[in-house]
């Protein structure tokens, strides 16, 4: 490099450093000022890690979820002054839905705050698999409501995982039951063809075991059609749909994969009325890019359908009207926003519950686990919290980390999601329970884990 060019580079880098330095100083000053304005919280702080993805192929779904999650935390601080006087603090970390970055975020956030992380919502089944391993050492609960490992319902083996409200096995079971009902009985499924179009990752592969089990029982044929990450290229998959003409298509996608699937279905001429998505494939970002073509497409809906309720009014009043809203009301009242809110609420309630046992102070992840294992959210509590219509009651125990799993079906009418009235789906535990036990036993054997003795811990 020439001498002059070198000098130029030096000058530029000095200038950049100066700009960075001065903004940093300004920001510090602002922060200090903000701290002074805020009344010192008496009770201490409870730290909530937020793993989110606001960039990449999954951002359309990640953004509203993260906004809902953070908005609810803001609401609890603004309206209630924290959890029984304990202020909530949080930090977001961008995972981009990538497992390695997710694990890095987990490591980054697990020790923050006075008592470490409260509980993690990995929001990715891949990240869940990776951090499940670490939870045994770190003793921090991992809440995977409606996703994650299906076998982690078993609290004696998976001491730190909480698939609250449902797993993919439940979801798959519900979908089979639903189409069975439509056909006029599960025995009518004999000889039918069901295609599973799935994201080729642990997320998409989870339901396969159950669908195969059910296929053995009812005699339908299961077509497995994987779609590779990120799912924008599905021509080959839908060519197979066109050739095989399945009677139903189950969609197990996430991010741009969902809308691409629906567009491909339109292009292939596959009727959307015969397509059913899992609860992660049934939000606004999944259907709006496909335009009118998405009309008639249905998906499962569990916890948090679209719409607004009492809690939304509070969020508008305490958060958005004060200019504190996350992301310009992006996705406000949509399926994923509401689901993020429910996720935050369940964590906050778990902390509240744990405070009964451990006292009103900042709690460690290990203490919060007690709250998650003894959750008792009945209809009265849900109503009091303003979540009426957005949640079903959940009660958990040391053995059962899931609680009850109930879901419905909603259909896209071209403008919004309409809930099918009178459809309440409950997974058949006689099929799922033995599968959970077998899978959890295998996990314990491979990891050489010692199982928890729940009876002893309670006593």
């Amino acid at each position, binding site marked *: 490099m020439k001498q002059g060019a070198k000098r130029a580079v030096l000058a530029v880098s000095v200038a950049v450093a100066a700009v960075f330095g001065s903004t940093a100083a300004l920001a510090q000053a602002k922060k200090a000022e903000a701290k002074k304005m805020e009344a010192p919280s008496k009770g201490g702080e409870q730290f909530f890690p937020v793993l989110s993805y606001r960039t990449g192929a999954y951002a359309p779904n990640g953004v509203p979820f993260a906004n809902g999650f953070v908005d609810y935390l803001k609401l609890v601080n603004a309206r209630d002054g924290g959890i029984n006087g304990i202020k909530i603090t949080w930090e977001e970390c961008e995972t981009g839905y990538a497992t390695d970055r997710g694990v890095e975020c987990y*490591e980054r956030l697990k020790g923050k705050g006075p008592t470490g992380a409260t509980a993690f919502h990995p929001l990715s089944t891949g990240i869940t698999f990776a951090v499940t391993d670490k939870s045994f050492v770190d003793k921090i609960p991992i809440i995977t409501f409606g996703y994650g490992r299906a076998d982690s319902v078993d609290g004696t083996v998976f001491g730190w995982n909480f698939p609250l409200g449902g797993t993919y096995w439940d979801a798959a079971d519900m979908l089979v039951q639903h189409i069975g009902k439509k056909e006029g009985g599960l025995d009518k499924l004999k000889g039918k063809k069901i295609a599973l179009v799935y994201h080729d990752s*642990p997320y998409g592969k989870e339901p*396969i075991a159950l669908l195969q089990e059910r296929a053995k029982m009812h005699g339908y044929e299961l077509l497995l059609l994987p779609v590779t990450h990120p799912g924008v290229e599905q021509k080959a998959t839908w060519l197979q749909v066109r050739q095989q003409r399945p009677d139903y298509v189950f969609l197990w996608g996430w991010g741009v994969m969902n809308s691409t699937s629906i567009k491909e279905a339109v292009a292939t001429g596959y009727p959307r009325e015969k397509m059913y998505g899992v609860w992660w494939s049934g939000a606004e970002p999944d259907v709006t890019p496909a335009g009118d073509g998405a009309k008639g497409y249905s998906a499962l809906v569990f916890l948090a359908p679209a719409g607004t309720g009492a809690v939304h009014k509070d969020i508008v009043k305490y958060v958005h009207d004060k200019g504190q809203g996350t992301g310009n009301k992006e996705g406000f009242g949509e399926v994923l926003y509401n689901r993020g809110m429910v996720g935050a609420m369940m964590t906050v309630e778990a902390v509240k519950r744990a405070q009964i046992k451990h006292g009103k102070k900042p709690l460690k992840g290990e203490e919060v686990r007690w709250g998650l294992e003894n959750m008792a959210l009945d209809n009265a509590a849900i109503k009091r919290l303003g979540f009426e219509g957005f949640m079903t009651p959940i009660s958990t125990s040391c053995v059962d980390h899931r609680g009850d799993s109930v879901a419905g079906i909603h259909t896209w009418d071209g403008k919004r999601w309409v809930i099918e009235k009178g459809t309440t789906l409950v997974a058949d535990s006689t099929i799922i329970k033995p599968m959970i036990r077998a899978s959890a036993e295998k996990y314990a054997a491979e990891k050489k884990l010692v199982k928890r003795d729940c009876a002893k811990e309670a006593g």
Partner: protein
Amino acid sequence: MFYRENGQFKSSYASDQQMLPILQDRLFMAGLLVIAFAAVPFFATDYLFLSLLIPFLILALAAIGLNLVVGYCGQISLGHAAFMAVGAYAAYNLVLRLPQLNFLVVLVLAGLIAAAVGLVFGIPSLRIKGLYLGVATLAAQFFMDWLFARVKWFTNYAHSGSVQTAPVEVFGWIVDTPVEKYLFLLVVLIVFTLIAKNLVRSHIGREWMAIRDMDVAAEVIGIRPVYAKLTAFAVSSFYVGVAGALWGFVHLGSWEPLAFSLTLSLNLLFMIIIGGMGSLLGSYFGAAFILMLPILLNQVPAMLGVPISTAMASHLEFMIFGALIVFFLIVEPHGLARLWAIGKEKLRLWPFPH
């Protein structure tokens, strides 16, 4: 002034052939080892170990492996993550099916299996060169991705294709805390670096370099290209296979086929390009650059207290990281190792350059 070899005479063959002929280099290396073994375990936090140091040590090993075939033998490979996957799944199945084996034996066997697979995928290198070979090695990547995702036996029929392992145990020592993992990996890496260093100084390494520099000339002076190219692929795959087994067992603990995707292959290649082709030191630099820099860049705004959203921080991370890659390649196309060497040259003349 300080870095000068005046007065250091070599009076025996042994001293002439030693790995670090200059006293100051030996002292520096000794100091580095003391820091790595004695100081780092006391100062580093769990985050530093688990997110930066442990993956760094394993990726450095993988980069050395790739450097042997690409940097030393001149055969481009775009599919080395596949051999990492072979190593990882081989180790997983060995531990699962032969639980009485010692982990070190498993590690070597996994490496050997990866070497055998690497040998097979190295065969095209006998007929094709350069970019064409690079494309041919992509076959390894896609084949292995397919194999481990679709053939259930390899994943012990796990219902979601994700496998998990128990903590590593070596002679009764259970390697499960971050510090223990770090020390274990450090020892493995040092042993393998020493072997690689001696390999590239031996006749085998010289054959590889001859093939790299001009294969026709090498053949004329009596080097068999078949032997040289295939040994390079085999040794390289062995290293990468061992790294893959460590990546699975020590770093991840549970993984899915996606963990060894094409992205990882490309990252390994970028490591040796940025770090320096045909340089073991470069493998270390490259691994550090590609692995650590994005993570650090991502945290810079938060550290400085600049209030920007996490999305903005990750966009900035991509932009600055990309710009830095371009910057370093313009300043020194031969990689960070070459910059280091230039620095050393300058230091020898300092403070009186000509």
